[in-house]
């Protein structure tokens, strides 16, 4: 119950922060090292930190409740790790990569993914010079906070609306990916407003350059997440029930329709 309350509060918090300005389009990849002014770096770290801390608590709670789920948690982390290593060509002629955080958000809730996603980002920033340590707060906010929260919200919302489960999983991962990159372009637009047109024009510029890069990748991520979800469903349905991902009593018909 307390966990749900915390998620709700975090959700409102995330909504307030992101609703500063939110048009519609997509963008690609993380913000590069040094390419965000100091005050923004600091601000995003401060905004992201509470999610990270609540995520640590959420993970501890899950693992204490059922130590067996540790493996599944590592599995969700490994999935994000593998997927964010894949730079995939897109229709715009440039490359970007999936985030892989949607699966973990569906399984363990969004806060847990704030921790796992941040770990992936730190690895990439330190070892691969991809993203950066100064921009870690901003990148973690887009990929490890907004993405997972949207994915979780879409999954739960779709299940409440009785939409088919495959659509819920696919939509959650796809929209989690898209909103990550919308957030990134918003972060860049806020830090680099257009001299004449302000933040809105700058946001439009950042998004239109990359508008279509992320869409096919988001679809791919949705499909891959669905594939992995299907496999977990086939082999380890008990874990999904325990994590309240699927309801306790599933009719035979519903079992078959995933």
């Amino acid at each position, binding site marked *: 119950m307390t966990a749900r309350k915390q998620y709700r509060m975090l959700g409102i918090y995330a909504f307030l922060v992101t609703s500063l300005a939110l048009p519609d389009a997509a*963008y*690609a*990849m*993380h*913000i*590069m*090292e*040094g390419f965000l*002014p100091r005050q923004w770096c600091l601000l995003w770290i401060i905004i992201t930190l509470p999610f990270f801390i609540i995520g640590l608590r959420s993970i501890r709670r899950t693992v204490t409740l059922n130590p*067996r789920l540790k*493996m*599944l948690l*590592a*599995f969700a982390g*490994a*999935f*994000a*790790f*593998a997927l964010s*290593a894949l*730079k*995939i*060509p*897109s*229709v*715009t*002629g*440039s*490359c970007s990569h999936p985030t892989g955080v949607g699966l973990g958000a569906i399984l363990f809730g969004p806060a847990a993914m704030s921790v796992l996603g941040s770990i992936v980002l730190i*690895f990439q920033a*330190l*070892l*691969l*010079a*991809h993203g*950066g*340590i*100064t921009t870690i707060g901003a990148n973690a906010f887009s990929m490890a906070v907004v993405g997972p929260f949207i994915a979780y919200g879409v999954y739960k919302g779709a299940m409440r609306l009785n939409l088919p489960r495959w659509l819920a999983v696919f939509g959650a991962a796809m929209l989690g990916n898209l909103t990550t990159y919308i957030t990134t372009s918003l972060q*860049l637009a806020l830090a*680099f407003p257009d001299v004449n047109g302000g933040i809105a024009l700058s946001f439009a*510029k*950042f998004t239109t*350059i*990359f508008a279509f*890069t992320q869409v*096919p990748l988001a*679809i*791919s991520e949705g*499909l*891959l997440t*669905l*594939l992995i979800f*299907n*496999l*977990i469903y*086939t*082999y*380890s349905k*008990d874990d999904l029930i325990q994590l309240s991902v699927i309801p306790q009593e599933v009719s035979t018909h519903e079992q078959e*329709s995933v």
Partner: protein
Amino acid sequence: MSKNQFNYVNLLLIMLVVLITVFPLVYVKGADFGGADGKAQEAIIELHPEYKPWFNNIWETPSGEVESLLFTLQGAMGAGFVCYYLGYLRGKKSQKECKPDAPN
């Protein structure tokens, strides 16, 4: 859904991902397929030519080869654990089906 049908669905998902990935390589002519973050860098410089990055990466990979090594390592470690766990789940399930009384 029978087991065979299920595998068919998963196979279809994999094929779709491959199709989506290969499509731009075949149909987008003259593209360099560079990283989208590099283009973001250009956009920032265009918007604010006076902006100077104030921090550099602590460690840059010495070459494209080393970078691809690390990316491969990242992908392989992730995929390695993902497949290990799926195999573990599968084995556990088939064992449970053989011995229905066995604990979880």
